[in-house]
């Protein structure tokens, strides 16, 4: 039975149409496994091999992977939430109530998005400190560290812009507190705040701007920098595996 299923899978994968899509084909050889990664436009960001030491749990605690996991969950739940959301006042708040009482699993959807967002912020920080204490930021990985700092800021902005969208008291005043800080910037503080809010106070214009930032501009930036971040892992010699053995370094 199991053999029959395996044969069927093999037949599908040797099929002409399948092979026209996935050129690497089937087989158990490491060459095929390498081609599977190398010949895929998305997967070829990664190297085809990794040092065994780097995949041990203690090396990374998988914090980077988990951060990416929360990002995936946020994209999926975020798109679904967009189907039920209007970025206008006070419709935005009614949509929250609709999620609660009208939409099937609406509360669950919103909960998952909210808690994943908190988890992502926490995991980004945890990932940063883990990388620091391992010394994995050192050359040749220094620029990937900088990209990581950019991704930290993008994550904070994503979370902050999303905070306003429910348009409840919590959202409104948290963003008011935050945007008041922007006006403390010397010389052009008020201009920055005006640009951010589309007005002099948090209002319907601010909601629309935060919505566009949250759903279009910042996710796009995040995907872009995540791609570079992953690609640089390969270009910088793979995930940092710790100090090399003494026989080579001569220490």
């Amino acid at each position, binding site marked *: 039975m199991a053999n029959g299923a395996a044969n069927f899978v093999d037949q599908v994968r040797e099929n002409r149409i399948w092979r026209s899509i996935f050129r690497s084909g089937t087989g158990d050889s490491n060459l095929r*496994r*390498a081609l599977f990664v190398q010949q895929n436009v998305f997967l070829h960001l990664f190297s085809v091999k990794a*040092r065994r030491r780097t995949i041990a749990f203690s090396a990374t605690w998988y914090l980077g992977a988990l951060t990416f996991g929360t990002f995936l969950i946020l994209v999926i739940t975020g798109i679904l939430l967009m189907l039920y959301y209007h970025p206008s006042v006070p419709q935005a708040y009614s949509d929250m109530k609709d999620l609660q009482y009208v939409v099937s699993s609406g509360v669950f959807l919103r909960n998952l998005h909210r808690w994943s967002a908190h988890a992502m*912020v926490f995991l980004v920080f945890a990932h940063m400190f883990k990388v*620091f204490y391992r010394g994995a930021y050192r050359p040749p990985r220094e620029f990937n560290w900088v990209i990581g700092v950019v991704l930290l800021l993008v994550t904070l902005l994503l979370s902050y812009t999303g905070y306003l969208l429910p348009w409840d008291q919590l959202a409104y005043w*948290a963003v008011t507190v935050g945007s008041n800080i922007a006006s403390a910037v010397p010389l052009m503080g008020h201009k920055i705040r005006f640009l951010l809010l589309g007005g002099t106070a948090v209002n319907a214009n601010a909601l629309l701007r935060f919505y566009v930032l949250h759903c279009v501009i910042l996710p796009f930036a995040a995907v872009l920098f995540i791609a570079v971040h992953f690609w640089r892992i390969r270009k910088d010699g793979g995930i940092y595996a710790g100090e090399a053995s003494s026989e*080579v370094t001569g220490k």
Partner: protein
Amino acid sequence: MSDSKDFVAVVDSDAKKTPKRIAFITRRTSPQVRVRDEERVMTYPEVFFRTAAAIEVLAIGLVVTSLLWNAPLEQLADPMHTPNPAKAPWYFLGLQELLHYFPPVVAGVLIPGLVVMALIVIPYFNINIQGEGLWLRNKAKRLRTFAVVVIVFCVFLAIFEVWVALVPTLIVAAFMLLAAQTDPQIATGYRASLARKPLSFWIMTWFLFELVVLTAIGTFFRGPGWSWVLPWRA
């Protein structure tokens, strides 16, 4: 000819004749060249499936959390009615706590700006890359500098009455002094490892400590008018 070399450097493309290659590695070099033959695994399936499993465990945890606890939703936003206290999201509450002591241009612009700058430049300082123990060289001179910096900084915090940032600073400074008083050759365990910690370790640990303390205070211990409250009394 007492100083004659005992090797000859040649350029040769014939791998059968001269199959061994020698790499000359200078002292200050990047870890990239410190490579050795070691066991490797295929990214597909080994790494991808491990990563997928890790993400699945996380997803299960988040789904369970979402089933048990609802995301907060308060009344419709009302610009006429300011809640007390009005709090930013939790990851900004450390900054909001500082905003309580310093003018907005310091707490809201200068400090976060300096933190981001400091994070970006970390890997561009050779002192960080070499990672030598802070107290292993020039100890007397470094102790003097350390004393001046810590005292000036603590006086600054005391003038603004930022006790919540002063206490973690003093705790980290105490551990730094403990490390300075430790000889890594003789000591064992955590004291020996403390003695070998570089400056960057101490600064980052101090930053992490402040971050956690300030965020926790802002989140749990601040009530109306940003006064002290106990979280279980709220």
